[in-house]
């Protein structure tokens, strides 16, 4: 399994962006970090300024994993930079390795916009989950106080 993962990662990351995205006017710094097995900290593997529509790569390929290392977690941080107050809306996505977890495949886009098709039912389920989560968080913070 580990071998297969390494094989999947053994492709060059392409920063060429062509596909339009939902934040077409945004320019951002995109930092990609990886956490390798038996290493406590994340390692920055790519920190690139990207132009419009830059949140998805053309090929969606990830960086090569160094030989002898196994990827545990990948973190993608998008920091908008061309419009001042967008900077406070930095987006961070973390993808963990593990049985059944998504780690990216050659040719696949970054899952930054979500992989699931957003039907009304999907949104409705997300809404209900979030209402419950917000109520629970509020109840928990009230107990602490």
């Amino acid at each position, binding site marked *: 399994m580990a071998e297969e993962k390494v094989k999947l990662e053994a492709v060059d990351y392409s920063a060429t962006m062509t596909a339009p995205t939902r934040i077409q006017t945004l320019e951002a710094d995109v930092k990609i970090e990886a956490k390798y097995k038996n290493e406590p900290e994340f390692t920055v593997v790519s920190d690139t300024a990207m132009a419009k529509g830059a949140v998805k790569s053309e090929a969606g390929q990830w960086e090569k994993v160094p030989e002898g290392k196994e990827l545990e977690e990948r973190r993608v941080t998008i920091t908008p930079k061309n419009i*001042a107050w967008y900077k406070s809306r930095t987006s961070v996505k973390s993808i963990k390795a593990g049985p059944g977890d998504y780690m990216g495949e050659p040719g696949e886009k970054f899952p930054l916009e979500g992989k699931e098709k957003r039907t009304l039912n999907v949104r409705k389920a997300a809404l209900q989950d979030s*209402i419950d989560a*917000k109520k629970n968080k*509020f*109840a928990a913070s009230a107990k602490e106080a």
Partner: protein
Amino acid sequence: MARTGLKSSKVLKEFAIKKRTQLWQYLNTSVDFFLRSVGLRSTKEILPGATSSAAANLELVENETFVLGGVAYKKYVFHSWMVLSGANVYVQDMGLINVSQGFMLITDQSTNIVADDTAGVGGFTNGAIANSGTLLEDSGLSTTIPATVAYVNQDNTLTGQDDNYMYLIVGQTGGVPSVDCEAYVKIEFVVEQAANVEFIQF
């Protein structure tokens, strides 16, 4: 010549009335169209969602745009009216605003919270929504109590950065059985000029 049964003067008079009515209707429609198109007249229909969303309305504010840093923005106004009753914590959904491009930036938030205080100072309190500064009716007793938390929540972390779930969050955790209020939410927000905005209610 066929006879109409009407005298010629009467025919002329009716013709004049009809023309005058048509002219009046034409002018009235034109003026109405003009006033609506420049944003000076509007009729907002505030409708609830099919299952859970509070009654709400979203409209583009015509003829009002902003340009900042070379980026053009257009403005929308969002209204939602509701009665919250029978619980001490509310996370009331007001629908979802999908913005196809860029972010939904709220530039104004002027929600009014009304609470029954007829057994207290008398009448009803009207105040801005301001967390613990918000007055709510205490347990149906017609007296008021400050909220623990009360604010408008915009959450775009659920199904995509472009899906802005709108909530009104009101709560009181001081041990009272319930709090009640009416809420009149008004929010103005801007989006990039080229963005498509879709309002989805649940």
